[in-house]
Structure formats: structure tokens, C-alpha cells
């Protein structure tokens, strides 16, 4: 244990007078200590409050993410519409896929309707073909009629020369009729061939679409299921983090409350400083006429003290090295 003995003097007054400056030093030490504690506590409080702010902000952001409320969308539209939660985004994607599927099913119905109409065109071309066959028969009949008319005209001689002209004309009409029938048959065949190709293409396309949509739906359902699972895990994690952040806020709040001890210490020190000043005034009253040399006492304190600010109180820091807190000096 360190000794605090004061130099031996002849009287009690001399001893008190010699030690009196120590009371001043003690008072100043207490004041500075109180100030240092206050500064340190304020620094710690500021950091705690910053931590609380961030923790609260984290809780708030996580809650917004979970609920989908609060923040506005960042699409630059300036609509101010609330951002969707992850869950509602997944549901929205599901609805979009179902809408696409419905659209494809509608397209399939339209394709089927087109197929039906093309089938009706086929039936119509079949009727045309039948009618052309009948026209063929009529043409053949007309040709036979023309031949017979010519034969009868030859038998009748000059008197039936006009009748022969009619027979020739019938033959010409029969030939032209046969040519038109051939043309219609050719066009009808072409039409049937084209519509058959369109029918085949439509059937293939509709089947491909249906298969592609089924595959896409299965794939999207699988991805959405994965998203839902991930969203569930994320939600659980965020909820856990939110609880932990809230707990951190409570703990920091309690720590800040505990730091209020400094105010109590500060007050108690102020009371002690006041008492020291009163004590010094009393001692000074009884010793102000006593001649003393306190240098030895102050030197002893200077040797006892370890910190720059302690020695600065004594005014004996002229040989202090210019080092600050945290400085490193290698020898």
C-alpha cells in the first residue's frame, strides 16, 4: 500500500496548512473525473442510440417486406403504389400464368373452330365435285345430241342445213362446258389441297401449343412452389431477425437506462467537492497565518500520479512527452 505521509512539522496548524493544497487538488481531480465520465457516457450513449436507430430501422424494413406496406414502387412511374410483398408477387405470377393458359386454351378453341370451318369447306368442295360429275354427264349428253343432230341434218340434205348449224353450235357449247368443268375441278382440287395443308398445320400447331403450355405450366408451378418454399423460409428468418432486433433494442434501451448512473455519480461527486471546499475554508481560516512550504507535498503527489491530466492539476507537467491517448512510441 502506498504511503501518504506528510512531512513532520512542529504543530497541528503547520501540518494542516502543509496539506491544505491537497484539498484543492482533490477537488479538481474529482471535477475532471466527473467530466471525463460524463463525456465517456455521452459517447457510449450516442453509439447505443445509433445502434437502436439501426435496429429499429431494420425491424421496420423487415416488417414492410413481410407485409408489403409502406415503401413505394421503384419503377419510376411516380404512382406511389405500395410495393407488393414477396407472397403477393408469387400469387400475381401464378395469376399471370393461369391467364396465359386461359389465353392459350381460347386460342385452341379458335383453332378448333377454324378446323371445323375448313372441314365444312371440304364438304362444300365434295358437293362441287359431285355437281361437276353431273355436269360431265350433261356435257356428254349434249355431245351425243350434237352428233345425232348432225347425222339427221346430213340425211335431210340441204333443207336441214340450218339444223346442222345448230348441231355444231351445241357441240361447241358442250366443249366449252367441258373446259369450264375441268377448270372448276382443277381450282376445287387446288382449294382442297390448300385447305388440307392449312388444316394439318392448324392441328399440329394447336397440339404443339397445348403440349408447350402444359410443360410451361408444370415448370412454372414447380418454380412457384420453390419460390413459395423460399418465401416461407425467408419469412421465418425475417420474423426471427425482427424478434431478435426488437430484443436488441430493448437490451440497448436498458443499457442506456443503466448509464444514467453517471448522473447520480456526478451529483455525489459535486456534493463531495462542495464538502471539500467547505473543509478547506475551515482549515484555511485556522491556518492562513501559518508559514509553510507545501512543495514537498506537491512533489510527492506529482511522483504518485501516473497520468498527464493528473499532473496538469498540480501544474508540474513541464516535462511531459507529447503523447496522446492511443499513441505508440517505439524505442
Amino acid at each position: 500500500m502506498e504511503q501518504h505521509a506528510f512531512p513532520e512539522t512542529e504543530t497541528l496548524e503547520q501540518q494542516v496548512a502543509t496539506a491544505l493544497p491537497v484539498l484543492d487538488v482533490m477537488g479538481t481531480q474529482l471535477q475532471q473525473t466527473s467530466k471525463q465520465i460524463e463525456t465517456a457516457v455521452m459517447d457510449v450513449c450516442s453509439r447505443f442510440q445509433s445502434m437502436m436507430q439501426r435496429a429499429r430501422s431494420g425491424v421496420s424494413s423487415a416488417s414492410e417486406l413481410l407485409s408489403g406496406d409502406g415503401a413505394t414502387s421503384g419503377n419510376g412511374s411516380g404512382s406511389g403504389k405500395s410495393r407488393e410483398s414477396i407472397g403477393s408477387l408469387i400469387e400475381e405470377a401464378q395469376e399471370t400464368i393461369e391467364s396465359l393458359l386461359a389465353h392459350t386454351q381460347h386460342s385452341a378453341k379458335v383453332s378448333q373452330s377454324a378446323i371445323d370451318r375448313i372441314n365444312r369447306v371440304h364438304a362444300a368442295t365434295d358437293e362441287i365435285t359431285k355437281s361437276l360429275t353431273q355436269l360431265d354427264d350433261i356435257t356428254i349428253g349434249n355431245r351425243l345430241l350434237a352428233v345425232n343432230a348432225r347425222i339427221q341434218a346430213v340425211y335431210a340434205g340441204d333443207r336441214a342445213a340450218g339444223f346442222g348449224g345448230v348441231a355444231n353450235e351445241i357441240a361447241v357449247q358442250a366443249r366449252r362446258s367441258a373446259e369450264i368443268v375441268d377448270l372448276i375441278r382443277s381450282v376445287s382440287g387446288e382449294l382442297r389441297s390448300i385447305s388440307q395443308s392449312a388444316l394439318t398445320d392448324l392441328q399440329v400447331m394447336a397440339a404443339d401449343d397445348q403440349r408447350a403450355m402444359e410443360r410451361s405450366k408444370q415448370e412454372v408451378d414447380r418454380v412457384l412452389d420453390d419460390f413459395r418454399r423460399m418465401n416461407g423460409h425467408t419469412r421465418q428468418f425475417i420474423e426471427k431477425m425482427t424478434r431478435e432486433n426488437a430484443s436488441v433494442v430493448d437490451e440497448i434501451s436498458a443499457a442506456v437506462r443503466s448509464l444514467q448512473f453517471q448522473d447520480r455519480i456526478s451529483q455525489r461527486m459535486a456534493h463531495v467537492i462542495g464538502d471539500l471546499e467547505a473543509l478547506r475554508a475551515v482549515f484555511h481560516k485556522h491556518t492562513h497565518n501559518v508559514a509553510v512550504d507545501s512543495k514537498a507535498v506537491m512533489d510527492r503527489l506529482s511522483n504518485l500520479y501516473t497520468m498527464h491530466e493528473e499532473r496538469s492539476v498540480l501544474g508540474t507537467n513541464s516535462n511531459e512527452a507529447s503523447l496522446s491517448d492511443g499513441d505508440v512510441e517505439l524505442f
Partner: protein
Amino acid sequence: MAKTALIVDDSASMRQMVAYTLRQGGFEVVEGENGQDALDKIPGHKLELIITDLNMPVMDGITFIQKVRELPAFKFVPILMLTTETQASKKEQGKAAGATGWIVKPFDPEKLLQTVAKVVP
């Protein structure tokens, strides 16, 4: 528009803690280091709340409250005393001076805000 509170305490750390708590409660804060300093800062402010320490240099909390209550504009502003003092006689002095409530340090931030919510309409 945010409400304004005046905090009077000679301890800078206490002012900091109370100010932070009140800001969390939506207040704007004006600070005074003692009763006289606070009185000097009051003009020009519309205050909805005053929280003051009791033992302060220059002017203590009781005197400060008496002076504030003499000002017509602040006659009915809620004033809470926030102090380490627990003596019943001191509390009576505070009540007689015009204090609205008495809170013993160290304070709990949540409880402080709950108390403030009771006295600030």
C-alpha cells in the same frame, strides 16, 4: 407539425438521453443547462412540454418552474420534474411551484414516453 419539448438539466448526458427519447416520441427538443439558461431560451418557442431537473447550478428546478408559471404563455404547459430527489418535502415543493409530475432518475424511456403521452394532449 412536431410538438416541441424543453429539457432542462445541468448534465449533458441526461439531456442527451431525454432528448433522444422524446425525439423517438415525435418531439422537437430545445435544451437548457439550468433554469436561467432555459428561461433565456423560452421566448419565441411554442412549448408543449417541459422536463426539468431539480438540483442545478445558477437556478434550480423549483425556482425555474415558479418563473415559468409567471409567464402567461406557459401557465398551463405540462412540466415534469426528472430528478434523483425522492424526499416527500421536495416533491411537495415541486407540486406547489406548479409541476405537473415527478419522475425519479434513472428513467425508463418507454415509461417516460407513456407519462408524456398522459400529460401532453
